[in-house]
């Protein structure tokens, strides 16, 4: 299926971080290139919402939201600013 983009996880990011995050920049830990989070390739149908680096395709974010609790895995990011 076609990927969406990071705009689609704006609500989950906001509830996890407490602020708007789609305009933030995350540096991919695999290829070292920066991604505006709104530009990540996002798959919502995986177990959790998976965000992949637009440049190299590696997984940089995984978000799971269940009953007001958001679990966040950002191990694919080297930096987030």
């Amino acid at each position, binding site marked *: *299926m*076609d*990927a*969406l*983009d*990071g*705009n*689609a996880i*704006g*609500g989950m990011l*906001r*509830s996890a971080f*407490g*602020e*708007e995050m*789609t*305009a933030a920049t995350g540096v991919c830990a695999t290829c070292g290139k920066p991604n*505006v*989070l*709104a*530009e990540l390739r996002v798959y*919502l*149908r995986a177990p959790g919402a998976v965000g992949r680096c637009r440049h190299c395709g590696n997984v940089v974010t995984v978000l799971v939201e269940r009953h007001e609790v958001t679990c966040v895995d950002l191990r694919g990011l080297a930096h987030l600013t």
Partner: protein
Amino acid sequence: MEGTALRGRLTWQIGTVIELIQETARTRSIVLDLPEWRGHRAGQHVDVRLTADDGYQAQRSYSIASAPEDGHLEITVERLDDGEVSPYLVGELRPGDALELRGPIGGYFVWEASLGGPLLLVAGGSGVVPLRAMLRHHSAIGSTVPMRLLYSARTLDEVIYRDELMKSAEGAIDVRFTLTREQPEGWRGYARRIDRELLAEVAWPVDDRSLVYVCGPTGFVETAAEALVALGHEPGRIRTERFGPS
């Protein structure tokens, strides 16, 4: 403190449907009264959540169709036949019903006066929704930033906000339609898919350093954004939002 939202925290709130507007055969606008709403920026979206009797929840994102200056929040939803949420929103929801949502969400696919222009808005299908919020905002603040909309739809009947956009076209906004599948007799707009050639004709000259917003299905957005970059437009001034059945 009870009743006080934590600063910055995004909480679910209940809106009441005050009006439903059938835009096309498959799309409907939902106008909501939201007592706790604190305003939004043009281009942002909301998450809508439906809860079944057994507690099962389904959540989707929908772009805000109204300008920040409009009195009520409006979203426009396209019915996807195999969708979990859109058939209910387009077919079942009635005035007076409650709807749970949170927002506003997003700070990237947003236009406000301080960002300037000139502006090129490129819409594929229901991708026109957040761009309509930008058009309305532009008009509401009396902006003089040059604005051009290129809107691709399959047929004239599938053009959302048709009357409103036609009216904008009589004013200061340059509105161009392309109908990819079927054109009415005497159609004077474009009749082909958006590609590099069409964008070369419609986009502002590269030297104008225009700000571009592209919204539509994933394939449409990729094609348009890649073509614009190939034509020499700065990637950093092209903002994109993709949607699809989810």
